[in-house]
């Protein structure tokens, strides 16, 4: 998704001539939509499976985006416009109005998710059933897609196009290890994302390394920690549990053997 958005953003920049989140949003949505259509077309008319089709289309779009980005940098004085930061992200390049946009979007998202949580849950879990009981599935799905595209476009400046998808997915993956409830998972994912963002931005400030990679490193560290040490689902607790079970089994076996001897 983030990869597919890049050419759209570049074209939007070329047409509009300056950096504007709204214009970028439109560009990103357009090229994201075209990418989706391409993927569906490939799946429907060839023997290529969906995952492969996604891989092909996204890499082509991303390649196209990089070409455009390079061209912009060489011809349009892109360095001054800050579009270069879209590749790896630079939180410091955010202006005051960008921050306002970010805030408004974040609040809108949280409210939308709170209001339609039940509906988003059912359309993600079982779309057919949701449709059957009269939930407006395509409308809500559209809203969900719109939210995702907005997040991608807005996040692009901070973490960059390369790592945006990682930022979307990693905190959620980490959160999954701690809970079996979607409500908690959503909240935790948000907290993990915020923590990584905060830590990454701060580190970027003092080390002069681009923000994006640092944020993702923190997010990945959180994920690894969850993967290893989360209670119940974590790897360590699984190993310990297996060990305990094995011991119990050995004791039982021993008791049976003794019993037979007696």
């Amino acid at each position, binding site marked *: 998704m983030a990869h597919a958005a890049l050419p759209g953003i570049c074209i939007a920049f070329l047409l509009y001539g300056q950096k504007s989140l709204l214009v970028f949003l439109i560009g990103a949505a357009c090229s994201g939509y075209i990418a989706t259509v391409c993927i569906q077309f490939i799946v429907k008319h060839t023997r290529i499976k969906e995952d492969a089709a996604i891989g092909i289309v996204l890499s082509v779009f991303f390649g196209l985006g990089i070409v455009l980005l390079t061209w912009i940098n060489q011809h349009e004085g892109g360095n001054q416009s800050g579009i270069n930061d879209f590749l790896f992200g630079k939180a410091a390049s955010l202006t005051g109005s960008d921050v306002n946009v970010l805030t408004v979007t974040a609040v809108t998202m949280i409210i939308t998710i709170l*209001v*339609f949580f*039940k*509906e988003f*849950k*059912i359309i*993600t*879990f*079982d779309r*057919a*059933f*949701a*449709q*059957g*009981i*009269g*939930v*407006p599935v395509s409308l809500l799905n559209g809203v969900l897609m719109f939210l995702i595209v907005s997040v991608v476009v807005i996040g692009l400046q901070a973490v960059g196009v390369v790592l945006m998808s990682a930022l979307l997915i990693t905190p959620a993956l980490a959160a*999954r290890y701690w*809970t*079996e*409830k*979607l409500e908690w*998972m959503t909240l935790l994912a948000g907290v993990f994302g915020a923590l990584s963002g905060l830590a990454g931005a701060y580190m970027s400030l003092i080390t002069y390394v681009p923000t994006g990679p640092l944020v993702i490193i923190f997010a990945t560290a959180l994920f690894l920690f969850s993967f290893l040490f989360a209670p119940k689902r974590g790897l360590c607790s699984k190993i310990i549990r297996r060990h305990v079970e094995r011991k119990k089994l050995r004791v039982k076996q021993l008791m049976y053997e003794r019993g037979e001897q007696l």
Partner: protein
Amino acid sequence: MNPLVVEQVTVAYDRQLVLEDVSFSVPEGKLVGIIGPNGAGKSTLMKAMLNFIPRMHGNVFVYGKPYEKQRHLVGYVPQRNSVDWDFPTNALDVVLMGRYGHIGLWKRPRKEDVDIAMQCLDKVGMLPYAKRQISQLSGGQQQRVFLARALAQDASVYFMDEPFVGVDAATEKAIVQLLNELKMRGKTVLVVHHDLQTVRDYFDYVLLLNKRVVAFGETESVFTYDHIQKTYGGKVTFLSSTHIVG
């Protein structure tokens, strides 16, 4: 007025007809088995009746009005493998989803809805597992959770897509009991079914389907050797005729 009337439903995938001119009408309080070989369009018929896939032609009436206006009267139990069971939620939560239509958009479930969901779990013998994460349930238990969800929906007509596939004997028994209870309460249930041996025991009506309706009617008169041969293209050899002609 019949709870379900299907008129000349025709469905095509990629310009190829998968269902042709399917018409039948089900009286109230009957259990109907939909029988046919793989690729006969059994699941497709259900999905087309529910508007999940577009119908090229034909109408579906529920209690005299088009399905689109009577959605709330129709409950659907999808195939078990149609969802990701690793989804972070528990059994009670899934059953509560059956109440969403009653609760309405953006509102939270009330205590009453939770009570109903618990009762439905109890009916399928899953009350002890209410708080269990759904990935930790066995296949049969997952199927029962789906059934409880359909019960919670409190519909008048039920569509069930292969509820008996891959379940243990206990679940099969629970499903049959549930079907009979629904019937007693005047509900009409359509079930996509695979096991020819049990058709006579489970269903009042059968729809023998192979892209077209081969036969439809009361099981006693319609579920005959000839009709089955016709439906399966003469490939059913393992059945002795004693099973069929009662």
